[in-house]
């Protein structure tokens, strides 16, 4: 039993949902009690997907536990196929259903369904979200991928077709997966390599069936795609990439690797460039030198971010860690190369403690580290899932490839520039424009308007200003801070207009009603 305040990963069935939701024509029947449907909001609210995840929850209740939960599952599966007409069905249990041991796989088999059924065994009390996503993708591929038909040997030699590859690993709810896929597809295309299938994101069952036909696989997210890529290598002799194209140097290495796999020439260095590279070299970036950074996230993003931080930004990595236990070995090795010991944990309190001890100048982490950073007043940028709604931006913002390197440069430097600005404010604290009462400049000039009112006018207004009664002031204090200023202004304006000299609780609410729109 473990005390948990926040968790980095959800349960493994949420990982399975990320696969099903990413795909076009797969449905997931999840044996689960009422309440587990909360997971839908991850996709519809955090990722803002315009459709419901393709998941049917059996929604059993306490009174069902006596007998017919299995029947409930069978009905739900039958109805889901009738209504949604998927090309393949995933079936499995959430944590509670795992305890009642109804065996959704066996039950679904007994239904003799007209489509492929993939039973998922995702041990909820042992494994977590990324493992669940990886295992689901793997089981789906094992069930669906077809042996490539051998090409008939022709008498005349044809011109060699463009080499092909698959992109493996992107899912729903992934950190920038949508944009990474676009960026890497463009990069591969520019190298003369064709992307055959991207999976599971936007893939259909028919796409999965033809995975083995490509020349090789590109593993974008090892946490999710590695198990499947290894199996495809064993089963069909398809090689796969080891280098993840996160960062400028890593992207160059990735280009070398895919060009070798595809047997195409490597473009010259000037064709492989990024603004980030020059910006990092430019003189104004000198102040970045030796900034102490702390990294935490999934294994892939942390290992790659450490390389960017150290080699491309000139930072000093003072600590790093991951919640991906499955990749602990890789992260430990990476940490060793910076003379550090990796923190392998899913305990957010342990991460917070390490950060307090190290007092870094920049935290590169997840949504959780953003909370920690905010509390400790340390600049922070997000480099890995779990992320929140603001990390699904409307604009194109990949992390991978050369454009990804540019996005990362901007994202990491931004909180530090803000820090520099605060520093300047501190230096000029006694200056009339930067006095202690002035709002931080990044809030815009409007916030310092009060300071610009000529003294005579200010005095005149003050004489007309109604005074606040103690009770009204107290009542105002109960209004949430983010609208309190507006409430105060509106009430004072109302009092002025109405010729009220003392603002009472009633005036406050009269004004509220007056301005209520």
């Amino acid at each position, binding site marked *: 039993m473990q005390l948990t305040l926040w*968790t980095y990963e959800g349960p493994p069935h949420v990982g399975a949902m990320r696969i099903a939701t990413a795909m076009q024509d797969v449905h997931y029947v999840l044996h689960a009690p009422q309440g587990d449907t909360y*997971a839908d909001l991850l996709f519809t*609210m955090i990722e803002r997907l315009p459709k*419901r995840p393709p998941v049917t929850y059996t929604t059993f209740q306490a009174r069902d536990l006596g007998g017919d939960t299995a029947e409930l599952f069978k009905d739900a599966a039958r109805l889901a196929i009738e209504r949604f007409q998927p090309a393949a069905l995933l079936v499995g249990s959430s944590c509670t259903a795992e305890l009642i041991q109804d065996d959704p796989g066996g039950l679904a088999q007994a239904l003799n369904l007209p489509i492929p059924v993939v039973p998922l065994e995702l041990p909820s009390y042992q494994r977590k979200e990324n493992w669940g996503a990886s295992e689901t993708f793997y089981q789906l591929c094992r069930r669906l991928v077809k042996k490539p038909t051998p090409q008939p040997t022709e008498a005349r030699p044809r011109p060699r077709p463009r080499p092909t590859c698959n992109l493996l690993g992107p899912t729903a709810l992934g950190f920038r997966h949508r944009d990474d896929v676009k960026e890497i597809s463009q990069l591969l295309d520019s190298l003369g390599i064709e992307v055959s299938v991207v999976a599971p994101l936007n893939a259909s069952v028919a796409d999965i069936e033809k995975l083995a036909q490509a020349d090789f696989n590109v593993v974008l997210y090892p946490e999710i795609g590695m198990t499947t890529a290894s199996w495809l290598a064993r089963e069909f002799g398809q090689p796969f990439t080891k280098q993840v194209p996160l960062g400028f140097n890593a992207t160059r290495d990735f280009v070398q690797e895919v060009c070798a796999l595809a047997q195409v020439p490597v473009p010259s260095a000037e064709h492989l460039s990024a603004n980030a590279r020059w910006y990092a070299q430019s003189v104004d970036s000198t102040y970045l030198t030796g900034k102490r950074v702390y990294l935490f996230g999934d294994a892939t993003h942390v290992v790659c971010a450490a390389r960017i931080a150290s080699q491309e930004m000139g930072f000093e990595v003072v600590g790093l860690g991951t919640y991906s236990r499955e990749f602990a070995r890789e992260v430990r090795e990476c940490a060793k190369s910076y003379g550090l010991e990796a923190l392998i944990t899913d305990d957010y309190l342990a991460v917070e403690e390490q950060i307090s001890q190290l007092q870094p100048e920049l935290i590169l982490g997840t949504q959780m580290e953003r909370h920690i950073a905010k509390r400790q007043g340390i600049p922070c940028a997000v480099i890995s899932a779990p992320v929140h709604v603001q990390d699904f931006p409307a604009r194109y913002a990949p992390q991978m490839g050369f454009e990804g390197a540019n996005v990362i440069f901007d994202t990491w430097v931004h909180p530090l520039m803000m820090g520099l600005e605060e520093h300047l404010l501190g230096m000029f604290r006694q200056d009339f424009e930067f006095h202690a009462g002035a709002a931080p400049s990044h809030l815009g000039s409007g916030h310092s308007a009060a300071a610009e009112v000529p003294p005579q006018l200010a005095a005149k207004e003050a004489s007309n200003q109604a005074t606040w009664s103690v009770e009204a002031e107290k009542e105002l204090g109960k209004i949430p801070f983010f609208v309190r200023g507006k409430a105060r202004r509106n009430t004072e304006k109302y009092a002025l207009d109405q010729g009220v000299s003392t603002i009472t609780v009633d005036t406050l609410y009269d004004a509220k009603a007056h301005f209520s729109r």
Partner: protein
Amino acid sequence: MSPVIPIRAESGVGCTDVVPLVERGQREVFCGLTGIIWLHRKIQDAFFLIVGSRTCAHLMQSAAGVMIFAEPRFGTAIIDERDLAGLADVHDELDRVVNQLLQRRPDIRLLFLVGSCPSEVIKLDLSRAAERQNQLHHPQVRVLNYSGSGIETTFTQGEDACLAALVPTLPTHPTNPAKPAKPNSETKAPHELLVVGTLADVVEDQLGHLLSQMGIEVHFFPPRNSQKMPTLRAGMPFLLAQPFLADTAKLLQDRGARHLAAPFPLGLEGTTAWLQAAARQFGVSQADFDRVTAGPRQRAEKALAVHRSQLQNKTIFFFPDSQLEIPLARFLNRELGMHLVEVGTPYLHRQLMAPELAWLPSGTRISEGQDVDRQLDRCLQDHPDMVVCGLGLANPLEAQGITTKWAIELVFTPIQGYEQAADLAGLFSRPLRRRQKLAA
């Protein structure tokens, strides 16, 4: 006794005898654990420890989102393989986690062990655990337990279970009169009223102020601090501030308190009728009632008019969520002129809801429980002007051109009482106004 204020003339019994459309299927609602999100903000020295799975912890942080930057006063003791396989004694493990927690948070005076689906299924006896831990930690910390599991509770029922667990701990007044207080001022019975159900502090203060101006002393349950639990008296009258507290109400009645039937304090009319139930109980004169409420009522009336022009004759469809649906539908229909297409509720408690049902237009389609796919079919078929639904359904419906209002906001926002009546209306008029603006 005649009503203190003439309430709109009734034309029959409304939906009193309604036969709801009862459905069974996939439910797109939260479980009772979610109530912790507002309960822990209310009782400021309480900690809620869920005994459950990673799913429970993930639900809590997904539902609470980033609202809480500080260390929250809730957490999950995640059951793992070793506990299930019997390699570790679950009770020993739970004691260890509780010790760890209390060492970390010495400010905690009330600890709830909250049962979940997994803890219920493995029949983990949390009442025994709470009893044992009370022996260790009381009086510094009182330990109680309740279940917020999805197999037993829906969303707001979690608060009902929590308050029901507190009721047996409420102190009784030492000079407990044997006979119940008479409902008039001639007896010596104090004018004490209990208001039951979590309200925002600002709403409590407003309602408390209005009632105290009528000479009624109000105690709120749950209180803001566990050391300030209200004291019960035999025959003490209580009003429900929230519609989902059936078990709590029953336990209070078992302890001799008396429930005052009333509509819920949503909207101008609901708030007036709710206050009136208390005024009637304590024999407050109509003149006094008018004197106290006239100002706020006029303000609310004026502020509501703006929203009425935007909501009048618009159609609305409620998916089940918090059990607030029926009082909300009543407010939107009677005070703002909206037409009710369907009013879904997770559970229909006829007795507590009787005054509300009587105020709904007869023939209103009321549904209880849920089969979300079939309900979505009906909704798309009806194509209402606005849908009230959970977070999982809102964006998919918006993408199909249907204006929605997140139901969860109605639980987290101060919406009760006169001063909030227009805010409540605004929660419905804003999405419609927004769609108009974006379409222009």
